[in-house]
């Protein structure tokens, strides 16, 4: 018995020791093991849409540069997992994203939305860059590192591609144009060049176009003015420049598309460039637009949801009709003209032509609508714009307009410039600036109530359009000035919200924003310029509910601002 107990005890000790040792050595378990699928890396990015790629919220994050899928196939956790990326010469190694552990059997999906610097907008041609991903992790305490690298193409700022779908997934014309929304990144209503162009157009209409007051009729009138201005300044359609390119597994059409500012300077454009210019000008003037992409062509539809002119009742405009040769065949084919003639195409003919094209496309179903405002709200926003010599551009635009319809001259130099007809001029007490405003404006300055920095305030209580001049002393730049004003207004119960800013060529900055108070919401544009001893703020705005209607009038007022 005693021998049995002793032998049994010894066996137990040995067996127990073996089991404990096996347990500590984790015999029979799969160790932590990180595996991954082939990294999915987009072959090319459009620099014109670099803000879109950086935004993980645009269309549920679909515009990622890279997607990685990791899985821990072991039975122990992968620990200290971290992942970061870089794009040589453009983005340094990012701060790694860390995960304390990836549990056994878990899958981790990582998407990269690259924050490219604004300097990529200076790329004129497609440029190669190397995208690198670095992953660090530990398996059973042992450190591992893996780096993935792939060459990608950063397209030039004017290169618009039509699709980013791999060839294996692309089935039809719609797939081949799945990147049409990126065209909205070229719509630049707040670019000072477009502002100037729009103000020249409104000047053609008498200087104080009332926007789309009056609904559809006024919207049509505004579109007619734009079209007539383009015809009068001999803007030309220059045909299609389209070529197919393959990068890795993506074959796509690539078009060199200029920004509206380049078109305005060169006074010529492709159909898509003309559509983008139209959308920019219309948006600047408070009118909505949708670009209609059809096979080999683009045109626009103007409408205004705010004024009860929905898209379905919108005004189709054939933008290329400014050049007769571009449309002389369809004019006859669609029975708008009985035969070919040399007569320039009128606005009414351009609308009729687009309306018929649109009806045909609606029947066939082969079209893609690109609603500008909705896509801008979704994150398709324009890249940064470089400064430009506005004085030179102003001179260029003036020279284009034939004498017979040349508008009244702008105020010239001198202590008090001549006042345009129908306008009243106000001059800064020290002669730092002047502004002209409609003669029916009444002074809104309330001594003892208005803040002391408000030098001038006038408006039309009926339309709610008004303008103000404020001088903020002791500040260095427009940001400090607007912050100061916001602080004072906040004490008065009004919240100022700046929604955008665009540098202007004369050293000024164009700010856009809203002022919310118990009295309602005012939307405004403001020119901010540093002057000796402070900053001058010249704003014009209107109640937000009538912005679309009054936008043109507001721009017309701001276009009269002259700094000395």
């Amino acid at each position, binding site marked *: 018995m005693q*021998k*049995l*107990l002793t032998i049994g*005890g010894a066996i137990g000790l040995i067996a127990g020791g073996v089991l404990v040792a096996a347990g500590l050595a984790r015999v029979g378990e799969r160790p932590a093991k990180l595996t991954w699928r082939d990294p999915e890396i987009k072959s090319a990015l459009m620099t014109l849409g670099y803000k879109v790629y950086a935004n993980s919220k645009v269309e549920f994050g679909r515009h990622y540069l890279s997607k990685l*899928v990791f899985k821990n196939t072991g039975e122990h956790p992968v620990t200290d997992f971290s992942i970061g990326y870089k794009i040589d010469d453009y983005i340094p190694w990012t701060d790694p994203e860390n995960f304390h552990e990836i549990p056994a059997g878990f899958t981790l999906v990582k998407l990269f939305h690259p924050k490219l610097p604004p300097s990529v907008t200076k790329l004129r041609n497609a440029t190669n860059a190397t995208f690198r991903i670095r992953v660090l992790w530990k398996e059973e305490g042992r450190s591992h590192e893996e780096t993935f690298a792939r060459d990608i193409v950063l397209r030039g700022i004017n290169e618009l591609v039509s699709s980013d779908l791999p060839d294996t997934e692309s089935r039809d014309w719609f797939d081949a144009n799945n990147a049409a929304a990126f065209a909205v990144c070229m719509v630049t209503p707040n670019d000072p060049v477009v502002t100037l162009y729009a103000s020249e157009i409104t000047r053609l209409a008498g200087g104080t176009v009332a926007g789309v007051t009056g609904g559809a009729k006024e919207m049509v009138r505004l579109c007619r003015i734009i079209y007539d201005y383009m015809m009068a300044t001999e803007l030309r359609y220059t045909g299609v420049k389209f070529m197919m390119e393959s990068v890795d597994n993506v074959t796509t059409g690539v078009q060199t598309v200029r920004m509206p500012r380049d078109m305005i300077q060169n006074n010529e454009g492709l159909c898509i460039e003309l559509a983008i210019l139209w959308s920019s000008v219309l948006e600047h003037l408070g009118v909505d637009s949708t670009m209609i992409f059809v096979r080999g062509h683009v045109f626009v539809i103007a409408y205004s949801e705010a004024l009860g002119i929905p898209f379905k009742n919108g005004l189709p405009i054939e933008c290329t009709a400014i050049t007769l040769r571009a449309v002389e065949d369809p004019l006859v084919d669609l029975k708008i003209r009985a035969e070919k003639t040399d007569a320039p195409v009128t606005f009414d003919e351009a609308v009729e032509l687009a309306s018929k094209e649109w009806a045909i496309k609606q029947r066939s179903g082969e079209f893609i609508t690109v609603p500008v405002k909705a896509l801008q709200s979704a994150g398709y926003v324009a890249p940064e714009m470089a400064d430009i010599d506005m004085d030179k551009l102003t001179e260029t635009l003036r020279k284009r307009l034939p004498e017979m319809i040349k508008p009244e001259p702008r105020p010239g130099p001198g202590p008090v410039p001549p006042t345009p007809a129908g306008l009243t001029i106000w001059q800064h007490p020290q002669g730092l600036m002047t502004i002209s405003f409609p003669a029916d404006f009444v002074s809104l300055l309330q001594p003892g109530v208005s803040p002391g920095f408000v030098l001038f305030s006038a408006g039309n209580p009926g339309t709610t359009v008004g303008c103000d001049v404020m001088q903020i002393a002791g500040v260095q730049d427009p940001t400090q000035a607007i912050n100061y004003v916001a602080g004072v207004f906040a004490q008065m119960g009004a919240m100022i919200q700046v929604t955008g800013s665009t540098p202007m060529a004369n050293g000024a900055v164009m700010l856009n924003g809203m002022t919310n108070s118990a009295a309602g919401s005012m939307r405004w544009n403001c020119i901010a310029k540093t002057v000796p001893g402070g900053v001058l703020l010249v704003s014009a705005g209107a109640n937000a509910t009538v912005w679309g209607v009054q936008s043109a009038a507001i721009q017309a007022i701001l276009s009269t601002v002259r700094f000395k």
Partner: protein
Amino acid sequence: MKTRLLLLTLALGLLPSWRSAVAQVTAKALDSIQEINPDGSVNLTFQLAFDAEPWGRWKTQVGDDPARLRGMMRHQFAAYVIDDFKFEKDDLNRTAKITMRSPAGPELRRDRRFQIPVDGWCRLINNTGHTWFFSGNNPAAGDNQNTLKIVLPANTTDASLINAGMPDQALVYALSVPAGKSRLFVWSGAVILLLGAVLLAAGMMSKKGTAPSAVPAPPPAA
């Protein structure tokens, strides 16, 4: 990544049209079931119901072309890994049912717990510990009616709803991980080791107790 499940739910209610960069066909109602597995994978079921006109449009765009629907979802909802995609539709009742599986479901949190985002407008109706019911009207999809059922793994512990009613509302839970083979080996080895030691000690004790005495017994007294 961060709002993977959330986005898919939203996206199904707002399935983008390929005829427009943003136009959407909105379902009248969307019922979702998310069954989370212990390994973090998730089985998803979506039941969509449409009114007559949107049903026609939805079918024209994707409903009659499941391959396009799946392709669009794979491309559009990139943060997801879509496997085992199945699609059924019922023209009579204008409903469609989509089922799929994704190996990646809940998000990993820094505190080693897991998180499932739930839209802020989705209000908690009831929970039974492992099964959570939500309901709400999606303001981004014409206030359509949504229900959401989330089934957590059986080994879930400490499930709770954080930031209720807020945009970052989420269901957070932990998992009690079963002991692996190695731990079993260690514990059973330790028990056997202890048993062996006891047996050995008993053997030794038993040996001492029964050994013959070297000292002869004293003679009986006279």
